[in-house]
């Protein structure tokens, strides 16, 4: 092991508790790694040196007193920059929020702080989480640690790149149509979108409220489960927050998959998926069968309409969610002769082309005379997707597919064609429409040496079975916290 920055969260936490390392040392290794990689990667928009050092010192003092406040105690964590942090600039990757310092913490951030986490900084993202490559950031793209000429995926590309590169031990992302899982797949880390409502959205700058969900991006399935345990929980400030029981997710790991029924989604395992990805995923499926799972193919006919429905529902919701950025109360203001002119100029200057495109799309889809045929129709498709899943889960415990149809693509290769970028999300979007949990686990490299992600989907609140299968996939693939070439992989695989 070359650096403390390459430890898993579980390893680092054990070393901390054993007194072998301090939180300050962990943080220093993480900041050193950032210093080494940021010029090439640009995973962070803001690194909070001062705040992180103070938090690490406090964590160490607590350890000396014999107090640990939670499983992330003293652990360097990165936060996607669409979650508000009190006193720390939060931009959502948009110029319209350049310099904006929120007066409050998102509930998930509060949970991290309570658990003793050390917040390293805020990571880059596609503007307002709209994109699949982090190229739509208003502050420049992030590169993939496995090949800096390629994208890290998106929209949580900064968090995925940071965790892969070692400039954070674990991170938070947000997932509206695949924005945690797809970058995790492209960066060779674990990314999980929990059940809608499991993690409070309070303080998450909304893209599409009915689809957005915060989740972990980590090096291992166990680390993702640990991070999820900290951030999941009922929040009275979020009316859509789940009110039931929240189990200890790590308890379900290591129980194997014997007797579980696993469905391979036919619609997501053929056309449009790259051959290397298909081969790697088939190999994982075979090993699951060998481990005692009953594996069969299953058809979910509505999958082919999910993408179209998503690209009506998400823009419709975003057109309202982003209306508040008007130059009146905070963020960018470009003056004009009238209030209307000021607002129009502010929005024209502050929003990038993809955000503008989606606001226009969504505004159109909700307009009088078009609502029924666009937004209304999309909601019907969403119902069909949910029904398809419900039917499938009568015969299966989990469903599997590739996370992304392709591995990391070259920077700039899809930016001219929005539709080709939208197609990147075809495997991940159905879980968002269904509000169900889903995880991407790295399972190997393609011929170009780029990571391949394997997606597992479970019914709503099926986190335990999801993580149980994910842990087996991780074990069977032999991935074992493989490090990208940028930082040197001295574990040698």
């Amino acid at each position: 092991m070359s650096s403390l920055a390459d430890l898993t969260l579980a390893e680092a936490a054990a070393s901390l508790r054993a007194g072998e390392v301090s939180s300050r040392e962990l943080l220093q290794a993480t900041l050193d790694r950032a210093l080494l990689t940021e010029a090439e990667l640009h995973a962070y928009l803001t690194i909070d040196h001062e705040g992180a050092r103070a938090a690490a010192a406090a964590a160490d003092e607590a350890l000396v007193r014999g107090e640990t406040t939670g499983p992330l105690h003293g652990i360097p964590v990165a936060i996607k920059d669409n979650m508000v942090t009190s006193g720390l600039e939060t931009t959502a990757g948009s110029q319209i929020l350049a310099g904006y310092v929120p007066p409050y913490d998102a509930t998930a951030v509060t949970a991290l702080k309570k658990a003793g986490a050390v917040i390293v900084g805020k990571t880059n993202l596609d503007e307002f989480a709209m994109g699949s490559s982090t190229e739509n950031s208003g502050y420049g793209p992030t590169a993939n640690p496995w090949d800096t000429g390629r994208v890290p995926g998106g929209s949580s590309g900064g968090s995925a790149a940071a965790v892969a590169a070692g400039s954070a031990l674990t991170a938070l992302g947000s997932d509206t149509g695949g924005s945690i899982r797809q970058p995790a797949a492209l960066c060779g880390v674990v990314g999980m979108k929990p059940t809608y409502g499991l993690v409070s959205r309070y303080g998450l700058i909304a893209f599409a409220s009915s689809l957005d969900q915060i989740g972990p991006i980590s090096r291992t399935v166990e680390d993702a489960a640990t991070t999820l345990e900290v951030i999941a929980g009922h929040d009275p400030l979020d009316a859509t927050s789940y009110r039931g029981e929240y189990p200890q997710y790590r308890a379900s790991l290591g129980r194997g998959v014997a007797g579980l029924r696993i469905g391979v989604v036919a619609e997501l395992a053929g056309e449009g998926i790259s051959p290397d990805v298909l081969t790697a995923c088939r190999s994982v499926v075979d090993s699951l069968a060998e481990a005692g799972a009953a594996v069969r193919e299953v058809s979910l006919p509505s999958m082919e309409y999910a993408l179209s429905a998503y690209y009506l529902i998400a823009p419709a919701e975003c057109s309202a969610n982003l209306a508040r950025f008007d130059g009146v109360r905070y963020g960018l203001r470009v003056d004009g002769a009238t209030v209307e002119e000021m607002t129009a100029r502010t929005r024209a200057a502050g929003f990038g082309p993809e955000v503008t495109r989606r606001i226009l799309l969504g505004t159109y889809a909700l307009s009088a005379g078009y609502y029924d045929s666009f937004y209304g129709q999309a909601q019907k498709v969403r119902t069909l997707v949910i029904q398809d899943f419900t039917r499938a889960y009568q015969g299966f415990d989990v469903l599997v597919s590739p996370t992304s149809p392709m591995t990391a693509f070259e920077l700039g290769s899809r930016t001219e064609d929005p539709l080709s970028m939208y197609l990147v999300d075809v495997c991940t979007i159905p879980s968002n429409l269904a509000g169900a949990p889903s995880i991407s686990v790295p399972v190997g490299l393609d011929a170009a040496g780029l990571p391949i992600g394997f997606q597992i989907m479970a019914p709503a609140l099926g986190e335990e079975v999801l993580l149980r299968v994910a842990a087996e996939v991780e074990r069977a693939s032999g991935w074992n916290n493989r490090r990208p070439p940028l930082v040197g992989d001295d574990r040698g695989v």
Partner: protein
Amino acid sequence: MIVEYEPVIGIETHVELVTDSKMFCGCPAHFGADPNTNVCPVCLGLPGALPVPNEKAIEWIVAIGLALECDIAYHSQFHRKNYFYADQPKNYQISQYDVPVCSGGALDIETDGQSTRVRINRVHMEEDTGKMIHVGGGGRIKDADHSLLDFNRAGVPLVEIVTEPDLATPQQARAFAQELQAIVLALGVSDAKLEEGSMRFDANVSLRPKGTDELGTKVEVKNMNSFRSLERALAYEIDRQTAALAAGEPIAQETRHWDESAGITGGMRSKEESSDYRYFPEPDLVPIEISYALRETIRERLPELPAARRSRYGDLGLDPASIAALASGGAGVTERFEDAVVAGSDPKTIANWLTGEVAAFLRRESVELADTPLSGEHLSQLERLYAAGDLSATAAKQVLGGVLAGEGSPAEVAAARDLIQISDIGALAAQIDRVLADHPEEHQRLKDGDAKVIGYLVGQVMRITAGKADPKVVSTILGEKAEG
């Protein structure tokens, strides 16, 4: 041929609820704080903030719906109403669209002894906007130098009540508005002050050929800050439309502002009329569930409504004018009346005091009865003193003034002001004998049966008793002597 037209009027009413906190956050909902002090990330629309519904407000809108005989939806839903305006923090308003909490009710009103049933289309829940103050220019957004924003009001719970176009005259519109205010006040869910905007009326008015069912082009009239201006604005608008139709001019569908000082309605820019609000279900909120049990609990707890109260007051022997005066007397009037009547006082006497002497005092001092020391118990104590003859009608009114001014209970005021009248026959007889002894000539006339002298002698008794003798009793005793 001259076509005769009749007006068709519908009213939209906004009522601000007096819940402790705002509709979707914990900020205080009350008025009067310094600008932008009752605000938080939610009601300022800061990035990331989410709404959480105020359950008390939901219960109160159900109460309003039940009072208006509405159906209450088991499942209701919030929608986003999208439009850009600087006083609206999110640039959408959380409102309701196709599934309001209450629908299909009715309210009976009376004008000139005629009863009219006004159907209620819907009652729905929404949030209020902030307030804008335009500085410089004409004080309007278009030509102001700059504008100031106060978000204290942003997010205050607002109930919108929409009638069917069932009103035919400005007088009916006014009667509807007053009755609705009485109901809201009886429910205790709003202070319903028109001048402060906590109750606001917009009217839709159109004309149609008399006796037909067709609906003409409707004009929305806004900015009426009193019942009187509602009535005036509608009368003006009806005249304006009548004249236009008579001249063969078409009526434009538009929103017009009532100008109180000029006494006219003026058109606003028609651009604002073409709004497409792009309603869609609010994804940050789950549907509102109103269980049968909750609805029935709210129904059981409904207070007596104005119509029922009027009917009961009629049964107590009050005339319609007194009933109306009591109902419109302001905070505390009907409560004091009830308390006194429950304590056994004569309803008519109490009503006369409350609508006469007391109402005059309240007007003079510009206060509400609820803010004065006069309690229902005071009223019934006073009524007992009056009924027992210890106080004259005039003295009773003086005592009322004293109690209102904070001088103490009626007994204390009467004693302190020395107003207890002498009606004890023994005590009065001595005083009468003294007067007769001092006025032998008149005494003789009385003995001769000259009843005309009684008035003079009563006056003399009143003089030597400093006005405290009960003139009725004195008169009776003297009368007996005359016949004797």
